[in-house]
């Protein structure tokens, strides 16, 4: 990490440069973090003044069947989504960092799903997964198989992961592409002389040098996994805004903004944030071990 120590006038520049962020932090985000923690110790319906609730909102969580279900769903989802997204987008980026014909086409192709708003493409996926005349089932029945109920309780997890990964590869790809650009060619030259195979170059040079991007991408993907909403909602929603595969944000959203139980919602949000933070710390460690810059 850079350790340039500002002196004299430079100190003012540090302030100027950070000012927007600090204002944003204090005015918006920062307040709401503390607010969330605070609210989690109260009962509050948003409209009438909150009443203190101690730890009861947290204590109630294990008994909340819907919460526990969404917790399990979320963990299962994240466990599949994070590694798949990071790995695939990394490989795509490495592939697209070469000089191959049709590069622009490929970049656009892989990025398309990312730019498209879930509301626009999510519907398309309901069609792909549809039970009758769905694209997938049509293919399966054409080959003589039995149609699969892609969005039923048991299969929905995988179907939803696929769509989310599909939608996230492009984003990861451009982060990695940018990161790949910053790796000096020298390292590859030395490695080539040292006798490294392409895989070894990838493993020993590219990945470690990509550590900052990787760290970023891991943290971000994890956060996204724990907050995934749009596609899941569109694909698995049930009549009243619920889902056959509710996740944690679902639960938070419904408790807080549908049912005005801000205390419960905040407690769940705190639990969610804590889980993400634990994972972030683990990534930090892993990365340090790998020798990169956090």
């Amino acid at each position, binding site marked *: 990490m850079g350790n340039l120590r500002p002196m004299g006038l430079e100190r003012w520049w540090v302030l100027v440069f950070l000012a927007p962020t600090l204002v944003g932090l204090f005015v918006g985000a920062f307040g709401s973090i503390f607010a969330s923690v605070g609210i989690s110790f109260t009962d509050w319906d948003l409209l*009438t003044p909150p009443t203190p609730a101690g730890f009861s909102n947290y204590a109630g969580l294990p008994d909340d069947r819907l919460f526990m279900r969404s917790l399990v769903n979320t963990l299962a989802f994240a466990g599949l989504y994070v590694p798949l997204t990071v790995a695939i987008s990394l490989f795509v980026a490495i592939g697209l960092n070469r000089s191959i014909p049709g590069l622009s086409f490929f970049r656009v192709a892989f990025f398309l799903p990312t730019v498209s708003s879930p509301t626009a493409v999510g519907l398309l996926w309901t069609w792909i997964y549809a039970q009758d005349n769905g694209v997938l089932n049509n293919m399966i029945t054409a080959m003589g198989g039995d149609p699969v109920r892609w969005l039923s309780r048991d299969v929905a997890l995988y179907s939803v992961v696929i769509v989310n990964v599909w939608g996230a590869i492009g984003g990861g790809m451009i982060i990695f592409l940018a990161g790949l650009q910053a790796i000096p060619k020298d390292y590859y030259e030395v490695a080539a002389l040292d006798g490294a195979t392409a895989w070894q170059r990838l493993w020993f040079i590219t990945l470690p040098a990509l550590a900052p991007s990787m760290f970023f991408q891991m943290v971000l993907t994890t956060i996204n996994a724990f907050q995934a909403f749009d596609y899941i909602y569109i694909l698995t929603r049930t009549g009243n805004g619920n889902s056959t595969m509710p996740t944690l944000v679902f639960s938070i959203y419904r408790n807080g903004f549908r049912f005005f139980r801000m205390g419960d919602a905040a407690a769940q949000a705190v639990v969610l944030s804590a889980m993400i933070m634990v994972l972030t710390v683990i990534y930090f460690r892993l990365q340090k071990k790998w020798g990169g810059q956090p």
Partner: protein
Amino acid sequence: ETEISFALWGSPQEAAVWASIAEAFEAAHPDITVNIEVSDWDGYWEKLRVQVAGGTPPDVFAMDAPLYPDWQLRNVLLDLQPYIDADPSVLDGVFPVTLEAYQTDTGLFGVPRDFQTIVLYYNKDMFDAAGVDYPDDSWTWDDFRTAAAALTLDKDGDGTTDQWGAWAEVYDMEPFWGPVIWSHGGEVVDPASGQTLINSPEAMAGFEFIQQVWLEDQSMPTEEQLSQYGWDGLLSGIAAMGFSGHWSVPEYAEAGLNFDVAPVPMGPAGRVTGVNSAGFVISSDTEAPDAAWEFVKYAISEEGQSQLANIGLAVPILEDVAQSDAYLEQPVQINHALFVEALEYAHMKPVFRGYEEWSGAVGDSLNLAWTGEESLADALDEAVALGDDALARNN
């Protein structure tokens, strides 16, 4: 010069009608301006919640009766009783059942704007093609089942159904399973005692009937199948019958369907349908309560209701208007009177605190039965358990 804001859910077309109502209102009240805000259903509530929590709700906004208690109990609605006490004639001629939902121990915090009774819609062309007689007021649920089976077709013979006898929304009780349970003598919920009642033997009988049509006969598309076709099976031309309120009329007409309506079939306990109403509420934070009330008053007046009747989305709450040409002689020619007549055997859609959460819990659980993932009994047990949880949480 006072400005009031009025928010509602609906389509841009609906907003246009409201704009013309507002215009007429403004003509009569030159010192008041009405700003109309329309959003789609989800967006409407989302926006409203932020506005209300942020302390700046619209002055007047639309309300769905079942959700009304939740909002009312949060002290964000203005008590209209004093205005009504000042001018009791305002509510003259309003169908009493529609008012019921808004009446509370502490006052009247909303007034109905229109109401919706559920009737049976059917596609005449499909009936004609299949040679099945149109439904009439003699129909029992068994007749319905037979007809539905006859109307379920695999037209191109590829082994998959491409026309179903009927479709219904499975999730919310309003259009289908509520009337079925009631007409089998069951009850749905008792908010006062915090009990969900759908696992009584009577209610079970109703659900079993649904399961027969749905899963055994496969005369109705699953939810997944519906989602693929844009939910409304009648509209998309894949189902011959459907249960809905008046709100479907303009859509079906625009889609060029050749359709009409019939009463919901009779069950062992007679004919029961559901009725629900949308209403107006005024924010307790409004700076212009009088102007807001003036507008509401105008909207439920004969003038306002007549204009509203004309869009054909709902049934007016004033008996006079409901009997008038404004309602009965709409451009789309079907049996409009049926919607009013249905009031006689209509059961009010339950209105209680926590309705939204309860209905979600129950709907999700029941859905497992309709997809075949769980047995009906198990699904009902889960529905009752989760439903009671939700009721408990809200009381």
